[in-house]
């Protein structure tokens, strides 16, 4: 797209969108957000990039083939579910680790549930981009 305004705007917006998407991902367990929403927002960052600067640039920026991101995300989500086996629990039983617990809070949570949500993020992100990039390359 030969629009200078859009290109320059994208320079900022794409970054903001991706930061925002990660934010939505991480806080999703407690506030609106989560892997889906995060992945959707993150992908719009690169969709915008592709529209403004072309898919070649967007692919270069992304560096990894979006399909691989998506499939890896699926693998991560699955491994997060399988991890429960190590603790003798059924598939997709969340495993939690609270770092630095205090009196009034449980501490910083690390969990397979979050890993699962990251997998979801990557799947949505990678999948949308592989479709949009491929379609963009058709026109």
């Amino acid at each position: 797209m030969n629009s200078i305004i859009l290109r320059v705007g994208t320079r900022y917006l794409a970054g903001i969108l991706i930061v925002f998407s990660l934010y939505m991902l991480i806080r999703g367990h407690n506030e609106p957000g989560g892997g889906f929403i995060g992945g959707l927002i993150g992908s719009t960052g690169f969709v915008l990039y592709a529209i403004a600067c072309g898919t070649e640039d967007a692919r270069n920026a992304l560096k990894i083939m979006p399909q691989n991101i998506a499939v890896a995300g699926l693998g991560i989500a699955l491994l997060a579910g399988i991890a429960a086996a190590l603790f003798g629990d059924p598939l997709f039983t969340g495993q939690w680790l609270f770092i630095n617990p205090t009196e009034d809070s449980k501490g910083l949570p690390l969990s397979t549930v979050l890993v699962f949500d990251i997998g979801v993020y990557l799947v949505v992100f990678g999948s949308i981009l592989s479709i949009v990039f491929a379609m963009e390359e058709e026109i």
Partner: protein
Amino acid sequence: MAEYPDAPRNNLVGLAPVALSLGLFAFFLGQAGGVANGETLRIVWEWVPSLGISISFLLDGLSLTFALLISGIGAMVFLYSNTYLGGHPQFARFVLFLASFMLAMLGLVLADNLIALFVFWELTTITSYLLIGFGHDTTKGRRSALQALFVTGAGALALLAGMILLGFTAGSFELSEILAKGDELKAHALYLPILILILAGTFTKSAQFPFHFWLPNAMAAPTPVSAFLHSATMVKAGVYLMARLHPAMSGTEVWFWTLTIAGAFTAVFASVLALRQTDLKQALAYTTLMALGTLTLFLGQTSGYAMTAFATFLIVHSLYKAALFLIVGCIDHSTGTREADILAGLGRAMPVTAVAAALAALSMAGFPPFLGFIGKELKYAGILAIGSEPFIFALALLLANALMFAIAGIVALRPFWTRRTADLPREPHEAPWPMLMGPVILACLGAYFGINPDPLQTVLVDPTVASLLGSTEDAKELKLWAGVNMPLILSIVTVALGIAIYIGHRPLRAFLARADAAAPNFDVGWDKFLVGLKALAAWQTRVIQTGRLRTYIAVTFATVFIAIAGTMIARNAWPGLPDFSEATWPVAAIALLISGGAVMTALTSSRITAMAALGVVGIGVALVFIVFSAPDVAITQLLVETLVVVLVAVALLRLPLLDRGGRDHRPKDAVLAIGLGAITTAVLLAVLETPLDRRLTDYFEVTSWPEAFGRNIVNVILVDFRALDTFGEIAVVVIAALSAYALLRTTSGKKDP
């Protein structure tokens, strides 16, 4: 053989089944003494006990007679084939099929479980199909194979139904138990259906009128197959089954009339048609039909004479018919033709064959002192024992026998003993001994048992009658001279009439050819049936699988509508009048927005309007989610809606306009669409009238934070409570992406990044 000069012969493949059948023959012969003394041998292997199906074998007189015929004639046919077809590239297959057939046939006649019997029955059908299809290179060969398979297969399905009903009615599939319940069966309401279904199976298998037409066509098979399957064994499977069930099912009016009339008619009809044939094998095929008719006729009776006649003629016919088929094979093989009008004067070149043929033909014609004579006398005795209208049936039999007499002369005497008038394709020569063994032995047996019928009587006939009637008491004696009686008189009339027919057979044949051409032809009917079936299939496919996607979609939606609306009406599940009192104006506005967007999408012929209108609907739906407290869903909805617009906008760049001239007005579609919309609303309103059970949500609300450590309950459901759903869902997303990518790139030639 001339045809396959390089091929090895008399190898293991060819001789093993000879040994096998001889061994079996010896085994069965060994059992003969016991059987004659009324012992029965029963072997049971459980197969599917929970369905009452076992592989159980029972050897009684009837089975033994058949088993000996099958294994004995089998041995000769195998020996014969080894020369006749030895070296043929598909000889091994042929032998395999033929041996399988023989074993299946033995299984059939020995089986004591109806379902096991059916299994063997069908195995004979398949092997016969493969054997008839030996000449698979020709359209005719394939047609004949299919015809035989289809006709007998159709009968077999009826038979299966009959057997199942019989088993259910009798409470067992074991024949030995069923036969003990004859009176119960005959009194049962299902007796008639069972009888009809079973007779459908046996009549097709035994080529009774009007299912006779497949048998002459099956002569496309190699001659040993014809000799074995289509005269001595398989076609008699139907007869066997009727005989097998005779004790349980005979004696009713319907049994008597059906079998008697069908048998008599087939006998006469077939022998008339036999006379019309000029191909020796075809002529024999029709005489086989006559024999089967005769056997059926006798099975319609219950008298001792009839049963003895049945048993005797069964054996007689197998002996002479197998011999004659093999002889025709020798003639064909030797001269290259089977045309009755050409063949003549072979006696000098083929003396052994000629003698064997003469012996067999005399037995067939019913000359004393051959076994055929005894058989014929018993037949007349049996027919005269019929309770009602015996003379009509006797007349029929007389006519059939006379024709048989004439045909025996035409087929087995004329080619050898008349002067040659026309050139033959090949100069005749005697067939090699393995091919002569069978006919000679079989023909001699016919003569031997005629003179000395006692062993036959004790070993086979009496036990068979015992199987049919329960005891040997009523079995009649086999003897050449029974004094001057009605049967003898009929025999003399038969001979006289036979000679007359023989003399006048040429003009008679010409007349028959004309008559036949005028009469309905079942073989042509078969073709018409196939054409009709294909036409029906094609018509149905045109109507249903039209190839027009729009029709498919319309039918699918119409089905949905009819199914739901019909059920709503049938079950009166309508909701009460909807209650709009709680509706607020913002929600009404949103509803209006969504509806407006939807209607605009449906009616516009502009793509960008459609896209924008879709966007409006998406926004409206997101507003619903916002108003009713679903922020996560609203965000997702808005994001997805945006991506939908982006993707559609990209795709549309390459796609043409929505309408080519003229707008898209479709009133009929609109009716269906409105109907579906209305019914959806109705069902939903009805559902909303039931109170909602919030158990699940209540549980999620109280456990979300304490146990799953999340305060966004929706997200906790997604990643924890129902993570498996979410996992499946992301799999959908990944695969959608991979599929879409693959679709765009498989052949587009674009390089992958």
